[in-house]
């Protein structure tokens, strides 16, 4: 366990983002195999064997997702979710800017698996550089017969276009992303029907994360059985963990799933900045419940271990907080994020996220009371557990409540400080 390069083996090469650079290290061999020698069922079965789980946040088994696509006459759409925007998360940008052809290759293979002839790569709008790089890569792929009609003489057609988001975190939720692609406001849809049945333009649709697609060529090249040996039994493969916050060496590290979090922090990232003590870790993007230092020391970085600590591996974003971090302030920043990004469809989320943010603002300013903490608890109960169309409100609760519970003394101290000032003054 530890660092293991599968996706990022050749990422340091200065031409890794070009077609020539990608082909020079064996790129596009898997797609030839998939289009010429394999049936759709064989591709899906290989991916199922590999045990690959979605790298966007939910960790849903990819092969199963593809298997849900009905065999109808309707067009089927394949969509790449590159709307990376959850605080802490910055790993897809690395793949988008440096390995766009790996993404394209993965998408062509996936297209064949679900019989799709039209795909879209949805990238958050702020990634101007990444969008430019992917657009150039798509053009290169078209001009060398890897996209378009009769790919590599296989008889298979697949068109691919790049689509820019316009500044809305919620479009990372797949049904909101589909609405956005359709030219609508990014409102999540009620499910069912799930996108596999009725997604883009009311047709069967698969939406996968950038990193998920990038794994696919490697699975075909090494075989699902071999891939499954990497990582843990239930969480096979590697993940790109994006580490930020109070560590000596922030960065994106491709690590075998199941690697102890302790090793990620203290060996791979060189420990806590300035030799301070670790206070807490947010292990999977801002929506993942915060872990105390004690909990973090026992965790391994796989879906099951983190779930057993009542948190989640989520988007692979690891935020490290040292003893110097002000958890009232960080929690307020996270609540502000959800308040800003709520799409406004559902009352518990639209109103709740703002209330929570405002109360935390009051607390950080030293104006909060015990009742305010209880009010956050009451609001949280109305925001979670299916009172809304999508999980954004739940995510806000997960970002706030565990911090309030596990680090209550910090919040209480802010309440008291005001009183102390009042008595002294």
């Amino acid at each position, binding site marked *: 366990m530890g660092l293991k390069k599968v996706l990022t083996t050749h990422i340091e090469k200065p031409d890794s983002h070009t077609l020539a650079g990608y082909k020079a290290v064996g790129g596009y061999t898997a797609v030839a195999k998939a289009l010429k020698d394999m049936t759709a069922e064989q591709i899906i079965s290989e991916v199922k064997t590999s045990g690959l789980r979605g790298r966007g946040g939910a960790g849903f088994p990819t092969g199963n997702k593809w298997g849900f696509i009905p065999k109808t006459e309707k067009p089927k759409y394949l969509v790449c979710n590159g709307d990376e925007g959850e605080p802490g998360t*910055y790993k897809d940008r690395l793949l988008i800017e440096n390995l766009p052809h790996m993404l394209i290759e993965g998408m062509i293979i996936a297209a064949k698996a679900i019989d799709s002839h039209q795909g879209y790569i949805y990238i958050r*709008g702020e990634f101007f550089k990444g969008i430019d790089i992917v657009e150039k890569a798509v053009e290169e792929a078209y001009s060398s017969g890897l996209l378009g009609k009769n790919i590599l003489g296989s008889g298979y057609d697949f068109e691919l276009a790049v689509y820019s988001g316009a500044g809305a975190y919620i479009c990372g939720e797949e049904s909101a992303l589909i609405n956005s692609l*359709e030219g609508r406001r*990014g409102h999540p849809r009620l499910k069912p029907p799930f996108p596999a049945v009725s997604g883009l*333009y009311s047709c069967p649709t698969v939406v996968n994360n950038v990193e998920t697609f990038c794994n696919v060529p490697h699975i075909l090249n090494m075989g699902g059985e071999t891939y499954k040996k990497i990582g843990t039994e239930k969480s096979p493969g590697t993940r790109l963990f994006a580490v*930020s916050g109070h560590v000596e060496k922030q960065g994106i590290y491709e690590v075998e799933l199941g690697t102890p979090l302790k090793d990620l922090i203290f060996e791979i990232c060189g420990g806590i900045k300035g030799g301070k003590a670790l206070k807490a870790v947010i292990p999977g993007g801002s929506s993942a419940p915060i872990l105390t230092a004690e909990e973090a020391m026992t965790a391994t970085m796989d879906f099951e271990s983190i779930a057993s600590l009542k948190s989640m591996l989520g988007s692979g974003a690891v935020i490290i907080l040292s003893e110097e971090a002000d958890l009232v302030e960080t929690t307020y*920043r996270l609540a502000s994020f959800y308040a800003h990004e709520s799409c406004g469809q559902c009352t518990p989320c639209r109103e709740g996220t703002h209330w929570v943010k405002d109360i935390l603002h009051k607390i950080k300013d030293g104006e909060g009371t015990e009742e305010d903490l209880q009010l956050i608890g009451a609001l949280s109960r109305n925001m979670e557990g299916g009172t809304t169309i999508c999980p954004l409100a739940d995510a806000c609760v997960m970002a706030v409540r565990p911090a309030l519970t596990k680090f209550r003394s910090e919040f209480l101290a802010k309440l008291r400080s005001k009183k102390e000032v009042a008595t002294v003054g």
Partner: protein
Amino acid sequence: MPYTFSTESEKRFQKLVPQFPNKRSLILPCLFLLQRDQGFVDHVGMEYVAKRIGDPISLAQVHGVATFYTMYNKKPVGKFHVQICANISCYLAGSDGITKKACEKLGIQKGQTTKDKLFTVEEVQCLGACGFGPVVQINEKYHEKITVEELDQLLVSLASKG
């Protein structure tokens, strides 16, 4: 003169049309073309976009999209749109000092534009570059791990270009 796509935007528009089976999908990219041409999206521009995409797309639909997404500037911004990420990782890396410096240097508050219309300063939510904080996006470019001194110099050099 009423707005029409610039030559470059018209070229891009023609390339976009065949990419989507449903015309409605053109709304977001067309709003970006409009913004590329004039720096912001306004009523006249949106009317043009709706007409250009054509029936059954209405101005209301275009307006609904434009007002939902934060990247569309609904009013003019400075020549240099300074967007400072203020979320958790950038905050831990010192983004508050960057915002403070930018506002002091330019003599404006968050959300305001300088009188010479060169700079607009805004605090934004996560820019997705969390390991490289503090991050400042100026127009289309990310400036990562930026220090207060570097920002100071950058603003001076941009002002001289303005």
